[in-house]
């Protein structure tokens, strides 16, 4: 210790005379930044811990797969979980082809120009529309104008509008990450642009692309405001919990969480809310983990390198 102090003192005389204060400022800065970064982790841990503490006791086979109750205690969330996945898949079926093609066009085909600017501007504007506004738009179009009432399809189409820009951006960024030398090499061998995209660019971009898709899926899974007035806040009673009819009312888990707190008549609404929140959070976290793992694996498979 004494040695260290001595060395500091001597180096102070060698270096500029504010070396000591600069070092202290540097330490404080490092510490503050570390604390900021660490608090992100801490928040997540506290958040998950609290939800587990409140919700874990509610989780049971019956809760996860059972039918919700309208008046008595002991209702489950089976149909809600099913509906969340069902609407997610419907949404992806509509979103992916359009978003990936549009992103591909912008990144690989469109040169700089008016049309590209217009598409880019439209996507960015669309991305700023709040989800509740998109939900009300869905209400006007799908529920009222088309007379569908609350339906899984209406909800999925609303979510498609909501997530199209994000998915397009994900595609663009995944493609932009592919080195330009691959394009040059492919084109110089006499490949067409389409062959280059399909055989070289997409396989190289598949990791980030899948990661992006799964992350957007997590957002779709947790979306609430856009669905309350489009897919509805109740499940279709009297039918199977696993209702594949896209024209039936389809309350998702996130919407269920909202509606149990807001308007439920059941005496155990709080417990159901806590349980639903826990399930929802775990599902969304799973999406994130899966996104990382699958993205990495596919990148290795298609490009033979870890990134």
């Amino acid at each position, binding site marked *: 210790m004494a040695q260290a102090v001595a060395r500091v003192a001597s180096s102070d005389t060698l270096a500029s005379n504010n070396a000591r204060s600069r070092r202290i400022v540097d330490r404080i800065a490092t510490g503050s930044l570390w604390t900021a970064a660490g608090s992100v982790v801490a928040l997540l841990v506290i958040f998950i811990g609290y939800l587990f503490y409140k919700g874990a006791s509610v989780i049971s086979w019956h809760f996860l797969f059972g039918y919700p109750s309208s008046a008595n205690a002991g209702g489950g969330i089976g149909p809600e979980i099913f509906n969340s996945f069902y609407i997610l898949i419907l949404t992806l079926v509509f979103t992916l082809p359009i978003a990936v093609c549009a992103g591909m066009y912008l990144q690989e085909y469109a040169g700089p120009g008016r049309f590209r600017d217009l598409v880019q501007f439209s996507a960015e504007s669309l991305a700023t529309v709040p989800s509740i506004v998109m939900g009300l738009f869905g209400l006007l179009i799908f529920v009222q104008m088309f007379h569908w009432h609350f339906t899984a399809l209406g909800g999925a189409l609303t979510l498609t509008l909501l997530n199209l820009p994000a998915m397009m951006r994900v595609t663009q960024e995944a493609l932009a990450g592919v080195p330009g030398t691959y394009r040059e090499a492919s084109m110089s061998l006499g490949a067409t642009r389409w062959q280059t995209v399909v055989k070289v660019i997409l396989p190289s971009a598949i990791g980030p692309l899948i990661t992006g898709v799964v992350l957007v899926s997590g957002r779709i899974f947790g979306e609430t405001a856009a669905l309350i007035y489009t897919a509805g806040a109740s499940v279709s009673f009297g039918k199977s919990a696993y209702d594949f009819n896209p024209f039936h009312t389809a309350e998702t888990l996130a919407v269920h969480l909202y509606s149990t707190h807001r308007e439920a008549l059941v005496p155990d609404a709080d417990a159901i809310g806590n349980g639903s929140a826990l399930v929802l959070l775990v599902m969304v976290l799973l999406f994130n983990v899966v996104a990382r793992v699958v993205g990495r694996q596919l990148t290795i498979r298609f*490009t033979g390198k870890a990134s």
Partner: protein
Amino acid sequence: MIQTPDATSLHDKMNVVDLDVFYGNFQAIKKGNLAVPDHRVMALIGPSGCGKSTFIRALNRMHDLTPGARVEGTITLDGTDIYAPDIDPVTVRHRIGMVFQRPNPFPKSIFENVVYGPKIHGEKNAKRLLEIAEKSLRAAALWDEVKDRLNRSALDLSGGQQQRLCIARVLAVEPEVILMDEPASALDPIATSKIEDLIGELKKKYTVIIVTHSMQQAARISDFTTFFLLGELIEVGTTSDIFTRPKDKRTEDYITGRYG
């Protein structure tokens, strides 16, 4: 070994007439004229930024891919204008292959890299593809080093091997002209000498146009040399003439190291 071919008796494989290349408002090549003799190695030399790479990339229409680049003038391949409106740039690049400055294999297996060209041009027969792969890898002097690991990733190869793989990949589409843009500049001396030996072999079957920043390299491998300066083609001649009896003062200054 500098050869002294008789320029007048050679057939011109490519002809460049009054070529201008612009990037936006900047003119990178000014009224370039060049005749490229068949089955010979033509070296393009000159200081950095003189337009050598720009010039060579005009020869297989790579500028089509660069937004803002504009090419004017005429470039013919066996008398056909490759910039004519009815010419598909894809067929041009099929006949005129290119090797780039940095080895750029695809993130695929060695085999898939070599047969990429034949596959996109419609070859589906697995046996035939294997034959093409072996023939091309042999021609690129890489076969013996990779024959046991054709299914391994091309990215595991060394830089020199990757560049020879890229040459094999070009040979697999059976082009007539091979453009090389400083193909050895990212390689060590041993890998460089392998590439240079290879170029000597290639001219038996192909016409080679190579950009190089090394005058020694140009002297070692080329039959003809073109000297570039500030976007202009200053002097064209047999390599021995350019290096021993340059006609233009600027060429002489550059050759003797008084310039650039």
